[in-house]
């Protein structure tokens, strides 16, 4: 019950909330009326300041961004980032060509683009996993025999300098 927006038994939002609202609305309505975008916008009202700037190419789309940004979807759970090698299919990951054999690659190894680094088995199909770039295996992320989902990172690779 400490929110300023909802003081017990009061009919009116508190001053800060009102001012914030006013400035936001004023900025939105100003921008809506302009049609195009200014380079910069700064609105100050009492303790509240809204300051906005746009680059040339951002001007045309700024309104949609302003309106939609608060509802943007959250970060994907397991998106491939950097130069990870990720699973090409959901299945069981194997680091070696057969049980007991040496792994295709180990941490520290140099790999070249297209080199096989593992296998994902799905429905008895053995699907090779290949390096997507030349580089060095920095970390083996998924364990041998682990169930992996599509797109799950298997190795982290530091790409070679071009």
């Amino acid at each position, binding site marked *: 019950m400490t929110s300023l927006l909802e003081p017990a038994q009061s009919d009116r939002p508190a001053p800060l909330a009102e001012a914030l609202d006013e400035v936001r609305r004023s900025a939105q309505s100003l921008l809506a009326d302009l049609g195009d975008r200014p380079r910069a916008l700064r609105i100050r009202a009492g303790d509240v300041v809204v300051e906005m700037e746009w680059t040339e190419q951002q001007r045309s789309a700024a309104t*949609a961004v302003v*309106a*939609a940004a608060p*509802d*943007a*979807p*959250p970060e*994907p*759970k*397991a*998106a491939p980032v950097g130069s990870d090698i990720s699973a090409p*299919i*959901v*299945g*069981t990951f194997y680091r070696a060509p057969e049980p007991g054999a040496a792994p295709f690659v180990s941490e520290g190894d140099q790999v070249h683009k297209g080199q096989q680094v593992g296998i994902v088995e*799905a*429905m008895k*199909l053995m699907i090779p996993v290949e390096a997507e770039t030349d580089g060095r295996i920095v970390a083996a992320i998924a364990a041998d025999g682990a*169930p992996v*989902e*599509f*797109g*799950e990172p298997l190795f982290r690779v530091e790409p070679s300098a071009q």
Partner: protein
Amino acid sequence: MFHTVLIANRGEIALRVARTCRELGLRVAAVYSTEDRDSAVVRFADQAVCVGPGPARHSYLYLPAIMEAARQTGADAVHPGYGFLSEQPDFAEACAAAGLTFVGPPAGVIDQLGDKSTARAAMAEAGLPLLPGTIEPVADAEAVAKVAADIGYPVIVKAVAGGGGRGMQVVNDPDDLPRQYREIRSTAQSLFGDDRVYVERYLPAARHVEVQVLCDQHGNGLHLGQRDCSVQRRRQKIIEESPAPGLPPEVVEQMGGAAVRGLLAAGYVGAGTVEFLVDDQQRFYFMEVNCRIQVEHPVTEMTHGIDIVREQLRIAAGERIAATQQELAARGWAIECRINAEDPTRDFMPTPGALTTLDFPGGPFVRVDTAAVAGGRISAAYDPLLAKIAVWAPDRPQAISRMRRALSELVVEGPGVSTNRDFLLTALDHPLFVAGTHDTSLVERLNSQPREEQ
């Protein structure tokens, strides 16, 4: 009963199935493509597995990925929903081979009933009325011309492997037949990898009426009445209702009995739908069987007070149908509208995009099935179905009023997103729909009418 059910689908139907699994105390395993990472069923499920990228052929339609997901989640049953792999005999077979219960009919039954030629033969043998035409595929244009001359124009040439409104061609004029015959075979080959076609009489002013059937593994079957799905755009249903308006009680009974008889004869197990065409003399003709839960199943659930997904799962688990046909009692009238993200003024072109505002109707006798959430989006990778809104009322006029009220509460906003809401309202208002005497030509009538006349 099962321990874990893998739901091999997405969108509203995946959530629909998950809800019933939860109510039955079953663990829910979901699959998702990278397009659907934050979807409603992923959040609802006990476990979710990413099975591939956005395009369905690499994820929801990719058999090895779905089977691996079932294995990884420890599923002992698989519910296929509708569309995707739901009517692929290979999928039912792969489940059986992996020791999983497939929630649907056996692979052999799907195979037989999915081929329109063998389905028509089986249903004819079970005594169901067929439209005049061929049961076997016709081999060449001359044979088609001969059949067409016998049964009279217009005729419809249909792909044996077709379904869902795709792979069919109406022929009005004998002169057009050779060209149209070549075209439909070529289309069928590219769509289904099977260019066999058959011919039957085309009914321009028919109603689409289907019967919901349940069959258990012990030879018991019953039906849950009719659904009229005559309001279609581009041969896809947009308004469905139960019961079927204006169908005489004896036709209701004969059609229901025929549907149950046909499916029992085919060795059907689970929930299935037998589709019929009804002409203006109230004669009905077998059209096809859908070996899965239908999009429009909620209207039957509302009139009968039965959770059809629950019955599917119980039947798949080997339970017996306890009720008899005589004990079932439908109550009142239910209507469903499919809210699609599409633009009716641009030939129903899909309008995928981000959903910034989303308010669904609520209150008395309104049901909403959706996987859409504000802040989410309608993906361009899949079907543009945004929500199903269903209402119940004691009679049809009240149900129409209630649907109008419910649709008026719907708010969908997002950059570039439009819906068919207003189009649905126009259809509900049409005098033929209000009278319950419309047929599958209703949408064409609406589109050819100037706005002023409506």
